């Protein structure tokens, strides 16, 4: 978490934390799993009331943020959601909201934003395809002009909350460039297939577009010139994802530390053994570094700084490398109980391991960094 919060921001965090602890503790997360429910709509609407969907939307459009730096506020929510492995389409909805705010038409703003902000409407971003490259080159789904509108053909996958979504923001190839379209999930020709997910607090879908016809009003931004929008969406997604991962990892390290102080082996707490102490020291150091890079990258994206792309990939490459490693060592420190279903550790490991690859893996972001630093 950023160490330089305003009083308003601290209140914002506190409100979200109290809400999550009361309404969606881990037992509730496990219940959702057993019931094969991704998230409850009323839970999401309440979250929306707390501001989870408003911070990237201007006040004129019904949004607003406590600090004026909407993304920095949202980072606080993401981190709290990580702490309790909370469900809900935080990343998809906010990425779409930000995209509409940035490049949507007046009609789109009016039609979509109020619903997203209120939590009534769920939208998600359909970007990646089967090759999971998470980059522009991986976009093969085509949009072809036809009469007054466009026809989309192809397949998107790894789409978070595709089944729950009312609207899909679809990134498509139009010739050499990219274009984006807002497509109702129930449009003719759209079919959604549920996928398996390591993180069972989330659901994902494959979305097939069998010559789906959309009107020209569905275009978001400029046809053939959506590259910057896509980059921006990726940055927002990554900042939130990284914050969530660090929140989750921080919680795991905290409770593992408590466990090490309490758990006795050979007459003394396991946390008194130097080999373990030193591993805790390393992990604590890495975690502080994770916090630092989340904050630095979030500020860069908030400010639309020149080095935002680089800092976001730096953060992802570091966090997605260290955080799963930290949680796995926490499993090791727990011993046998750490590999049982009963213990909550695996819920965090599932979340963090999945975040590690969604929107690009460590190696994919290292590759991005290499390109950005002139290799």
């Amino acid at each position: 978490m950023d160490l330089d919060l305003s009083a308003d921001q601290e209140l914002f965090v506190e409100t979200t934390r109290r809400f999550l602890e009361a309404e969606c503790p881990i037992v509730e997360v496990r219940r959702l799993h057993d019931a094969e429910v991704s998230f409850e709509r009323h839970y999401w609407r309440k979250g929306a009331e707390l501001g989870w969907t408003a911070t990237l939307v201007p006040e004129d459009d019904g949004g607003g943020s406590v600090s004026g730096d909407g993304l920095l506020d949202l980072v606080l929510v993401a981190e709290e959601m990580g702490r309790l492995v909370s469900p809900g389409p935080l990343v998809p909805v906010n990425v779409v909201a930000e995209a509409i705010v940035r490049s949507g038409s007046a009609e789109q703003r009016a039609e979509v934003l109020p619903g997203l902000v209120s939590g009534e409407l769920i939208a998600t971003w359909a970007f990646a395809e089967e090759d999971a490259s998470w980059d522009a080159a991986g976009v093969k789904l085509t949009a072809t002009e036809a009469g007054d509108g466009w026809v989309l053909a192809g397949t998107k996958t790894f789409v978070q909350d595709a089944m729950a979504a009312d609207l899909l923001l679809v990134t498509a190839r139009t010739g050499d460039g990219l274009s984006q379209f807002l497509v109702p999930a129930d449009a003719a020709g759209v079919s959604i297939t549920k996928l398996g997910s390591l993180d069972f607090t989330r659901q994902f879908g494959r979305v097939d577009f069998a010559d789906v016809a959309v009107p020209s009003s569905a275009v978001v931004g400029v046809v053939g010139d959506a590259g910057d929008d896509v980059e921006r969406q990726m940055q927002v997604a990554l900042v939130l994802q990284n914050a969530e991962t660090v929140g989750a990892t921080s919680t795991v390290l905290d409770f593992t530390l408590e466990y090490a102080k309490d758990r006795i082996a050979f007459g003394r707490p396991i946390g008194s053994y130097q080999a373990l102490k030193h591993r805790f020291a390393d992990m604590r150091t890495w975690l502080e570094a994770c916090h630092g890079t989340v904050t630095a990258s979030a500020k860069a994206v908030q400010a639309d700084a020149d080095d935002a792309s680089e800092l976001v990939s730096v953060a992802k490459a570091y966090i997605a490398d260290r955080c799963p490693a930290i949680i796995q060592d926490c499993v090791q420190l727990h011993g046998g109980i750490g590999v049982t279903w009963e213990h909550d550790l695996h819920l965090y490991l599932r979340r963090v391991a999945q975040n590690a690859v969604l929107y690009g893996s460590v190696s994919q972001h290292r590759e991005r960094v290499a390109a950005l630093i002139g290799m």
Partner: protein
Amino acid sequence: MSTTGQTTMESVESFRARAAAWIPEHLPKIGATGNDDPVTRRLQDQNLDSDNYLLRTKALQGIIYDGGFAGVAYPAEYGGQGLTAKHMHAFNAECRGYDLSGLGAYGMTFGMIGPTILEFGTEEQKERHIRGFLTGENIWIQFLSEPTGGSDLASVLTRADRDGDEWVINGSKIWTSLGETGDYGLLVARTNWDVPKHSGISVFMCPVHTPGLEVMPLRLVTGSTGFCQEFFTDVRIPADHLLGTLNDGWTVASRLLVHERNSVGGGSQYWAQPYSGTQGEGAMGGEPAPMEGRGARRDDLVELADANAKAKDPYTRQLVAEAYVAAKVGSHLGPRVAQGMGKGVLPPPAGSFLKLFNSSNQVRRSDISMVIAGTPATVWETDDRSSEGRGLGYLFRQAGSILSGTSEIQRNIISERVLGLPREPSLDSKVPFNQVRHNTMPTGTEN
């Protein structure tokens, strides 16, 4: 070993010849059907097929016992053959091509618990229990680890209180292999709380199917099971089921662990898994597994890289080769450690090298497979079992570094008992157990 009443021992070659003659008439061939193999047909006629795997396994052991090949190195007076490990390996080698993989269920019984009963049992106990498993009737398991104990096996909280001619057991055990298969369990319990922890432990032979003993499969992070947890509530055991001396159970348990190490390391004279088609690489000792031809089986990671069209990517090649190199080096470490221990160049605790090395390799290999697989290892098409397995395997990545002695314990053993570095100060070994800091027994699982 005393072989009272025997004349000179049968030679290995003679024994091998007898086995070679007997086996085809009595054991089922791998992949055989009832149509082409009379043994297989006989088993099928008794409904002893894969649907009744446990019964089939027990029946097979019974057939081997009846044939005079069970417990090759066990003393003849308790039903064994009174021969040597060499004879056992000869028999096992002759079993190549026969489907005896189910007999692995007897590994713990023959290799670890049997030798312990031989060492500590009364004449009556040996008479009854050794034959009891040689015939296939009883499979034994261990009630050893406790939810509160972790690596500290001697901090036993499960209690045995004397009541007349019986012991009354209360407590819980966990990480029991074959918990749902076993007939008898070797149970470690505390019988005296007023003495230091190692001095108040006793070992009991505990029937598994007995009132008050609840065996529950343990659900793992992967969602599957594989071990059990047991709850003992006023379980009553006859007094004569004590194994060894009262309150000297740590001695018994320590020998059990030595037999475990020998058995797992391939150095047991009492047990080696008969060769079977499903046996993996890297088994130590006994008959060496046949050298695999080059390219006979491709590394899983090569397949994965191919499937992801990354086989020509230099980074992927580095990762796959790293994992392959580690596995190959590991396959040479096993024989080396066995040889070193055999020649006395390495002390027995050097067995910990293997556990530590191989479990670390597993961890790294899991990571590498996740790197190569990428997103589909965490979000998969529902019919893509391979991706799902990879993701779940990653969740279970540490299991090999935790179960059967954590890597931390292996490192303690190596540093103290192989390298001679000072031992960790022990705060609890000289103090009455009821004055020692220990964890408290939970009242039940949180399920």
